């Protein structure tokens, strides 16, 4: 009698199994995600704060109207930026917050800075910065929480 035992490798390996190991270093990747998350969070809080405290909401609404956007969006966008930024900093619902903030940056890229040319130092600011900012949001959406996220504490406990 002979018994051969082989590892059970599923024929259709999922996307995770194919990519998780070879392409990223799992020891440092969570901290890379953390750096991105904190940078985005700070940037959003700063931009939301700028709209509320420096330009003030009526001022922001006026600016929106001047570039052909509805003025009533000023408050929702400022709130989304501040709240979204704080959620990113805390690492709560990171993926979904990043996805929700993405359209704001698309508008910033195309409507607000689109006419200024691509170079960041152009008058009024070229669109390269908001475009990169928008892409960073999508990257954050694809990456998820990263290290030290409040949102993933519960999950970690559940898996232990």
């Amino acid at each position, binding site marked *: 009698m*002979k*018994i*051969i035992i*082989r*590892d*059970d490798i599923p024929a259709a390996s999922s996307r995770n199994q194919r990519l998780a190991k070879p392409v990223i270093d799992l020891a440092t990747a969570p901290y890379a995600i953390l750096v991105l998350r904190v940078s985005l969070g700070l940037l959003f809080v700063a931009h939301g704060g700028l709209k509320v405290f420096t330009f003030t909401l009526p001022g922001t609404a006026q600016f929106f109207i001047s570039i052909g956007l509805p003025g009533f969006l000023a408050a929702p966008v400022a709130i989304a930026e501040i709240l979204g930024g704080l959620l990113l900093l805390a690492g709560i619902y990171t993926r979904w917050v990043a996805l929700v903030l993405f359209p704001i940056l698309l508008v910033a890229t195309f409507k607000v800075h689109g006419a200024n040319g691509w170079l960041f130092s152009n008058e009024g600011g070229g669109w390269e910065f908001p475009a990169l900012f928008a892409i960073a949001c999508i990257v954050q959406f694809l990456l998820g929480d990263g290290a030290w996220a409040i949102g993933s504490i519960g999950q970690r406990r559940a898996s232990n």
Partner: protein
Amino acid sequence: MSHSSQSASSSIRLDAGTHWICTCGASKNFPHCDGSHKGTAFQPLALELETAKIVEISK
């Protein structure tokens, strides 16, 4: 899990846990023991798997 009963060799996927493997060859549910060894000198083999494995057993 596929049961290929009464063949000389069978390759099956076994989940984690303990599996009783027929050693007498009389099992109608080979490679699983079905108690047919009663009255023979054979005892089933306890196969403990920590994770699911593909197990190929030939008589």
